[in-house]
């Protein structure tokens, strides 16, 4: 008996692609599992991370116009976890949103008084025992208030 159909299939179907597809699928799955794409982490950027205060500070060059300072003092809460931030007349107890609102108000006041945002220097002045996560919360509040120059200062 003549197998006409089987012969025709071999002639027309070209090379066997099954092993290629298998290998390619394995590579694809490996890359999908092993790769890291949009991570679960990001960064708070600072171009002026640390600012000396007091005797350790270096003298500014002649003709240097200093930025308008805005000191934010950060202390640990008396009850334990949390922070208390104070700047001028404001005092915020462990609430980042409230701190952001107050800082936005202060920035607008300074802007109205003729100080552009890029000439305002925010200095976060933390106590030695303030936890890093609370400092980051204060730092983020300053960034959310659209301040451009934010730095950490020597501890008090």
């Amino acid at each position, binding site marked *: 008996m003549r197998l006409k159909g089987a012969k025709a299939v071999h002639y027309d179907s070209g090379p066997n692609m099954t092993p290629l597809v298998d290998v390619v699928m394995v590579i*694809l799955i490996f890359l999908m599992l092993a790769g890291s794409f949009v991570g679960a982490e990001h960064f708070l950027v600072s171009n002026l991370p640390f600012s000396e205060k007091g005797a350790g500070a270096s003298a500014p060059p002649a003709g240097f116009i200093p930025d308008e300072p805005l000191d934010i003092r950060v202390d640990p809460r008396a009850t334990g976890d949390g922070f208390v931030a104070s700047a001028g007349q404001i005092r915020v107890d462990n609430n980042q949103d409230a701190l952001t609102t107050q800082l936005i108000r202060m920035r607008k006041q300074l802007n109205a008084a003729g100080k552009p945002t890029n000439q305002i220097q925010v200095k976060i002045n933390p106590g030695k025992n303030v936890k*890093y996560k609370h400092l980051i*919360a204060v730092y983020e509040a300053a960034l959310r208030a659209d301040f451009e120059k934010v730095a950490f200062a020597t501890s008090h």
Partner: protein
Amino acid sequence: MRKHGMPEAHAAHPNVTPLIDVVMCLIIFFMLVAKIGVSTGADQKIKIPATIRGTEIKDMGNTLTLNVQPGPLNQPFITALVKDDVRELKLVDPTNGVRQLFVELSHIRNGRDGKLGTKDDNIDFKVIIRGAEDMPYSILEPVLKTCAEAQVKNVNFNTRRGGEVAGG
């Protein structure tokens, strides 16, 4: 005239050509965007603080990630990827008085000659601080001070996306 229909082979097997096209495109995409085997020396065991705000750093090549956590005697324990090896960088090595962190940062920032304002200055050098969220500022402060002394102007704080924010 005789019409040519689909060959028998096509009728018998599914056409895998479009599948291979798509899969090849996916493979090329994943190969280009995936970061496999690239280590920044970041210590994933450190629990970093969470923030809503944050940006991505596109070029991680010119960065040094400093893992900062409290060490013995209330001193910072700093590790970083230096010469393909994650090792401790002491603020001051008690055995010989060498300021390891400062030396390393200065070397990268100021180039081989260690001098500012020369050709081999690396002004775009960035430091990434990966700090434990519960460490006190007394641990972080000397690290920031050392960065400032080494003339590193760009310091980035590594945080987790979203999550709980203090009091917020």
